[in-house]
């Protein structure tokens, strides 16, 4: 029993358990369906934030283009649902029945071949997982093999986000343009707009998010997690210990992309549409802010950060719509300057010591062999400069 306690403490499962209770029990009991659906929407961003903890916090790679993967996941879910909503009977007033309405409006008379796979749910789900990951692999492999990193990489991810928005808006006939893909109703005949469906989707979403956190926690506790931390601080030492550093970064980027895509797909299911406004530069940066506020070293913290910023956004943008963006920017600057490890960092440095004296003992007696990198989670703030300068050096060499 005691050993179990120590293990839960070390692996950080306690905090995951608390989060799971809040998401899966407290929220559903205390909120009406409208609010709960809103929280469900926020939690889909939580996937992106959790991915950013792995990529940015652990891997030291800042991506300002996570919206691309969130959007891709969401769009591919939307494509499936749109095709289901566009059966020939419902769309018989169109000049070409059986294709999505926006295609008909754009004088397209035939379903493009790359829409075909999205008639089938299994194929659509596979695409949700694989297409964004594949894109992430191509981008990151090309960049990291050439030792592009730090700010340069961040700028490139921004460019990708911009390209993606332009592409989606420009190809209106195939993508629904600036409106996105709307009027999504059913998944295999199951009406996702009904109350029970909304509840079910909320719990599926929450469960998946907890699952994603557990998966990331497992990765953090493996040697790969240790290596990511080691790489971020001493990239050359890892490289000259026989590791192909670039492939580890590629892995982190693909992982973050896949998680974002799952979030995007869940967003589409719960909100009922997908549009380019979740793909571009601004939403991508917002997602980084979620992770930064929550704490980029803490998986659980990132989810709290996402919830907090989004609640703030909802309330403030209702009362002061013009001020919200400024407030958001101030929040980001404030976080970076004042508490670089976010809410989780504040918790580690201010709250934990209050009741940490009892806890400290079992941790020191723990076996060294399977120690977690917890020392570094609460440790000193990490200079984001370090990996950047390392990459510049690497490039000139």
């Amino acid at each position, binding site marked *: 029993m005691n050993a179990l306690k120590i293990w839960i403490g070390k692996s950080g499962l306690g905090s995951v358990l608390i989060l799971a209770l809040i998401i899966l029990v407290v929220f559903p009991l205390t909120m009406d369906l409208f609010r709960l659906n809103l929280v469900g929407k926020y939690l889909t961003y939580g996937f992106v934030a959790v991915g950013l903890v792995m990529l940015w916090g652990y891997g030291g790679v800042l991506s300002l283009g996570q919206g691309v993967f969130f959007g891709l996941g969401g769009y591919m879910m939307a494509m499936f649902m749109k095709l289901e909503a566009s059966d020939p009977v419902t769309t018989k007033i169109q000049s070409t029945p059986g294709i999505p309405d926006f295609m008909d409006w754009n004088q397209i008379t035939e379903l493009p071949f790359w829409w075909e796979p999205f008639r089938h749910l299994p194929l659509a789900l596979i695409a949700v997982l694989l297409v964004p990951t594949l894109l992430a692999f191509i981008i990151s492999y090309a960049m990291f093999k050439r030792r592009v990193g730090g700010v340069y990489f961040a700028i490139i991810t921004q460019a990708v986000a911009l390209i993606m928005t332009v592409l989606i808006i420009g190809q209106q006939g195939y993508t629904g343009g600036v409106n996105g893909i709307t009027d999504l109703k059913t998944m295999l005949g199951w009406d996702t707009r009904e109350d029970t469906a909304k509840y079910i989707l909320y719990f599926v979403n929450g469960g998946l998010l907890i699952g994603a956190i557990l998966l990331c926690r497992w*990765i953090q506790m*493996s*040697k*790969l997690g*240790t*290596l990511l*931390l*080691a790489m971020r*601080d*001493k990239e*050359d*030492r*890892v*490289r*000259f*210990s*026989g*590791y*192909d*550093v670039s*492939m*580890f970064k*590629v*892995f982190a980027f693909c992982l973050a992309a896949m998680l974002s895509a799952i979030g995007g797909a869940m967003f589409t299911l719960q909100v009922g549409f997908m549009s380019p406004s979740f793909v571009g530069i601004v939403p991508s940066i917002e997602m980084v802010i979620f992770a930064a506020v929550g704490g980029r070293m803490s998986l659980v913290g990132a989810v709290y950060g996402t919830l907090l910023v989004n609640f703030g956004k909802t309330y403030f943008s209702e009362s002061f719509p013009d001020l919200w963006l400024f407030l958001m920017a101030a929040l980001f600057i404030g976080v970076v300057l004042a508490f670089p490890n976010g809410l989780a960092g504040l918790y580690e440095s201010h709250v934990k010591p209050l009741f940490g004296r009892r806890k400290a003992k079992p941790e*020191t007696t723990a076996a*060294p*062999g*399977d*120690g977690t*990198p917890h*020392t*570094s989670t609460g*440790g*000193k703030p990490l200079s984001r400069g370090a990996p950047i300068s390392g990459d510049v050096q690497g490039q000139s*060499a």
Partner: protein
Amino acid sequence: MSNTDFVLAVEDLTVSFDGFKAIDALTLYVDRGELRVIIGPNGAGKTTLLDLICGKTRASAGSIKFKNVEMTKLQEHKIVRAGIGRKFQTPSIYENLSVFKNLEVSFPRGRSVFGALGFRCTDEVRERVQSVADEIGLGDALDVEAGLLSHGQKQWLEIGMLLMQEPELLMLDEPIAGMSVRERELTAELLARICKGRSVIVIEHDMDFVKRIAHKVTVMHQGKILAEGSMDKVQNDPKVIDVYLGH
């Protein structure tokens, strides 16, 4: 280039940075089991030479053969996997991790992404970590966060991280810089022990230390080799005296 019995054969190696030849047609052979010390004034190209061998810097011309395999085109991690370990000038360890973790991460298994995911710290790994830690005098400090070690201990830890990989060629850049007299002695003993069964290249400035550890000394000056041989021979070479005392 011809094949040789040497563990490391550097031939006609040249690297130029914007026209400046940091290493100029340098040829150097290192025997198996040899402890070679490279000395030379600042800017002689000693560290650059190590950078070239381990792949951190790419050669403009020439060849570096390790056990008769060409290394100049290989990626850094492949050079390491071939059996060349390199210690950097300033201790380069993972400060946030424990001594144990530092050594464990350096264990040469689970080096691919998915290999690292599936890596388990088995008894074999633990034993190896313990034996290396004992070797470098950190056997009792496995749980200590590496950042809290003394400067000398950090240097040893990095040497230990290299030993975990069991390299056949070990390159140490100023291993005793900033060490106390006692630590220097311990390091000299450590080097004498670890060069059994492998070749070691050491860059060093401290002549007493060099005299104590070196099998053979190479003097570099302006990217070239000025003299090579036993410490006595090198010390009495008029060219060497000129470079060190002249100007």
